[in-house]
């Protein structure tokens, strides 16, 4: 697969003379970045799965999956949380071995014993969970496992150059290849994951919810790259819960439900959403936002934030949330929204400014005080910030509230399970058994657990940071209903989301943040997507706006 071809790169941003090194042994003169697969005819089937089964003890994650992917196409995988999408791609990438069924790659039956084998065969994967090493540099992460080397020494300069080229191609020439990945925002990390996939000579690139952590403009950039790849005959498997993305970039769609293929090779652009959703869920769900109450009564002020600042993060933010009101914050990734939320919640200490709940100032820098004042927060990163992965679901759901049911310091496990069960029902958690460890849930269901935590007990104000990231269509609608219902009961909600339609659709009032400052505030009804995007996009990920 190493024969260099003469085909010019499809995009001008790709500088000539770059290659994807194969990691072993010294590398010669660099050929073009992605070697077009010489023996692949566009449209030819490169990958075919027949009746693939993968069981985890007690769960059939894959239960007879059929899939057919052609060279040069973007093949979308759709399915609810837990349908088996991630498991499927792990089988493809050699991270899991199927129990039965056949995988045909380039016409040959194959079985990948480990990720290395799949990579060698030309399958590169961007996993759903960021799979980077925080203390390695961008370049080292991109080339992890197949570093260009000479006698065991890493060819650092060469590797940095390669990485810079790939990053440039990805539209992010400003990310320094030698910067520690630890210091990148999550969007930057996603770019590095993509760079890693592109550093291989891949004929199939699998992307598991790559857009979940990307801001709006970044998604556009991602699509540009995908188009460029497919133009070279590379196949892409694309997983996302966002229907509009699938419409925009997808060619064909395969739908999974409960580990089975329920529909294969539907045309991505023309299949009606209702059809897709009903194949995913077995029922029809309107992908809409709940109605706003006709007239917001002049409710009491619940949260009042005055001139809150944190050095280097955000400055002079003032906002109020009334009881029963949903306030959305729109902004680019890195605009300081998460920090703002965490500061309001007491998880960070403000440099100046005050936070009050129901007229009483909340002790700064104390999460406990915030919780006692009636706040609850669903943080952005579920794994590192929210979940006890090894603990059962119910204990995760009741993490913030178990003391309420305790007597004299003794916990009441029965009560906790009952409460958690109720939440699980409301959020359609799958599977429903609340004694399972959270780690065995699919990504979207884990997110439901995080949100569910604050549906218990006397939360008066909910701070939600990207609450629907990785959540499927059905559950998303469900979550919207839950949030709205909470508001109707008088709970105030402060919502951060990178999906502008979500902010506009769900919130009553919208604040737009840029570079740590609120630049605009208006009732949601008075804004449309384009206006918000204009306000928001005054710069790019790493550079910020020209001052």
């Amino acid at each position, binding site marked *: 697969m190493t024969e260099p071809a003469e085909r010019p790169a499809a995009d001008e941003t790709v500088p000539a003379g770059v290659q994807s090194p194969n990691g072993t042994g010294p590398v010669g003169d660099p050929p073009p970045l992605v070697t077009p697969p010489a023996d692949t005819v566009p449209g030819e089937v490169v990958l075919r799965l027949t009746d693939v089964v993968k069981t985890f003890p007690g769960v059939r994650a894959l239960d007879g999956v059929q899939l057919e992917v052609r060279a040069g196409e973007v093949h979308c995988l759709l399915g609810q949380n837990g349908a088996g999408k991630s498991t499927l791609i792990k089988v493809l990438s050699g991270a899991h071995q199927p*129990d039965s069924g056949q995988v045909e790659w380039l016409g040959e039956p194959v079985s990948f014993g480990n990720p290395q084998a799949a990579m060698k065969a030309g399958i590169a994967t961007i996993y759903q969970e960021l799979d980077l090493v925080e203390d390695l540099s961008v370049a080292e992460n991109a080339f992890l496992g197949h570093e260009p080397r000479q006698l065991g020494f890493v060819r650092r300069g060469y590797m940095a150059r390669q990485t810079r080229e790939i990053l440039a191609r990805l539209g992010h020439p400003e990310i320094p290849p030698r910067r520690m990945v630890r210091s990148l925002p999550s969007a930057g990390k996603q770019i590095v994951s993509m760079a890693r996939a592109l550093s291989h000579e891949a004929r199939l690139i699998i992307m598991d919810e790559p857009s979940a952590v990307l801001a709006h403009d970044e998604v556009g950039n991602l699509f540009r790259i995908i188009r460029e790849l497919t133009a070279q005959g590379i196949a892409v498997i694309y997983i996302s819960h966002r229907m509009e993305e699938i419409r925009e970039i997808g060619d064909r769609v395969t739908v999974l439900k409960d580990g089975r293929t329920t529909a294969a090779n539907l045309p991505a652009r023309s299949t009606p959403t209702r059809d897709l959703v009903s194949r995913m869920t077995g029922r029809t769900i309107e992908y809409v936002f709940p109605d706003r109450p006709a007239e917001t009564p002049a409710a009491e002020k619940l949260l009042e934030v005055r001139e809150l600042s944190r050095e280097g993060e955000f400055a002079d933010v003032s906002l109020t949330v009334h009881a029963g009101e949903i306030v959305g914050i729109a902004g680019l990734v890195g605009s300081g929204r998460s920090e703002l939320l965490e500061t309001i919640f007491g998880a960070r200490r403000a440099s100046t400014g005050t936070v009050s709940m129901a007229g009483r100032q909340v002790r700064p820098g104390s999460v*406990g005080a915030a919780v006692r004042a009636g706040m609850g927060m669903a943080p952005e990163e579920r794994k590192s910030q929210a*979940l006890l992965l090894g*603990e059962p679901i119910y204990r995760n759901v009741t993490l913030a509230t178990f003391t309420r049911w305790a007597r004299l310091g003794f916990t009441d496990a029965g009560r906790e399970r009952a409460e958690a069960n109720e939440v699980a029902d409301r959020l359609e958690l799958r599977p429903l058994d609340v004694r399972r460890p959270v*780690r065995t849930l699919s990504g979207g269901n884990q997110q439901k657990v995080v949100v569910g935590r604050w549906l218990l007990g006397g939360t008066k104000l909910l701070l939600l940071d990207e609450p629907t990231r990785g959540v499927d269509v059905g559950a998303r609608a469900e979550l919207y209903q839950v949030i709205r219902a909470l508001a109707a009961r008088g709970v105030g909600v402060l919502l951060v989301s990178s999906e502008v339609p979500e902010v506009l659709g769900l919130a009553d009032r919208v604040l737009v943040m840029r570079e740590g400052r609120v630049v605009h505030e208006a009732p949601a009804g008075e804004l449309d997507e384009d206006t918000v995007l204009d306000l928001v996009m005054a710069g790019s990920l790493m550079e910020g706006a020209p001052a």
Partner: protein
Amino acid sequence: MTERTETAAPAGAAPPADRPSPVSPAPAGAPVHKGAGTPGNGTGRWSGDAGESFRRNLGLVGVLVVLIVIGIVTRPDLYSDMNWVGDNIMSILTLASVVGVVTVGMTFVIIGGGIDLSVGAIVALAGVWSTTVATQSYGAGGMIFTAVVVAVCVGLVNGFLISYGRLVPFIATLAMLVAARGLAAEISDKQTQVSNNATINGIASNDVLGIPVLVFILAGVVAAGWVLLNRTTFGRRTVAVGGNPEAARLAGINVRRHSMLLYALSGLCCGIAAIMLTAQANSAQAAMANLYELDAIAAAIIGGTLLSGGRGTIVGSLLGVIIFATITNLFAINGLSTEAQNMVKGGIIVAAVLVQQFRFKSLTQLLARNKLRSTN
């Protein structure tokens, strides 16, 4: 470690997917590394809280049985005398009692994401302080009070340095180890201080219903530790703080205060252990309880506590301690030389852990196969 997962999901209770998620921090197929890769990382837990740890502990009991059988086989003469056997069991439990108490505290600290290298030093300091002439003049009550207060205070200092001074637990407690032994040597003037208090000494020499008082104390501490860990908010917080401190913090738990308390709790256990050890030795000395930290940590880990925090059981730790005591006893009754003893001991430790794993592995496979068959 995927293999030791979900074995006997209690008869159809849960429809469990019992596998450690491949995206879990201790991933399938990755070597059991960084102390995290505990066996049985998987699951089974939703078959009831204690599912997996129960099976682990069963494995440890199996190891214990094997050790006893070896004892019987190698010294049939001794084991044929039932009186001797009863005595021997008590002697093993007594040997385990002091380290056992320390291990309970250590288990809490480790589950809470920390480590306490200073336990042996705290025992020595508390023991020495409670046997100074001045303290002894206050009688047994004064001695016990002193030991406990000294030990808890040292624990609080540890906790304070770690929680609020933000020192790495390893370094903070290592520094405390050195300092506390130094202070103990200073106080005792490097002498072995004899305890003349009959009540204290009686703790080690008296029986109740044929069971030594020391064993009762161990049982009491273990029971209290079990309740504290499994039935109280304190225990729940401990697991949360150790499992994911950031999540605990964002759920409103005062992580700093809690981890400080954990070290104080470990100190408390050391104080109790100091009295027990002083009673046993009728004396205290700056070098006493040497390397108890290693014994306690090893027992906790063998018992299934994750060195990286967030998981562990009191019963497992107790079994770990008893296994170590039984090994020592086995060597003693066989009159092995210390060198041979050490070589064999290393082997036994490895074997014990491997045996457990093997058990799980094969059982898991068996069950998985059965399940598959019944599903197909």
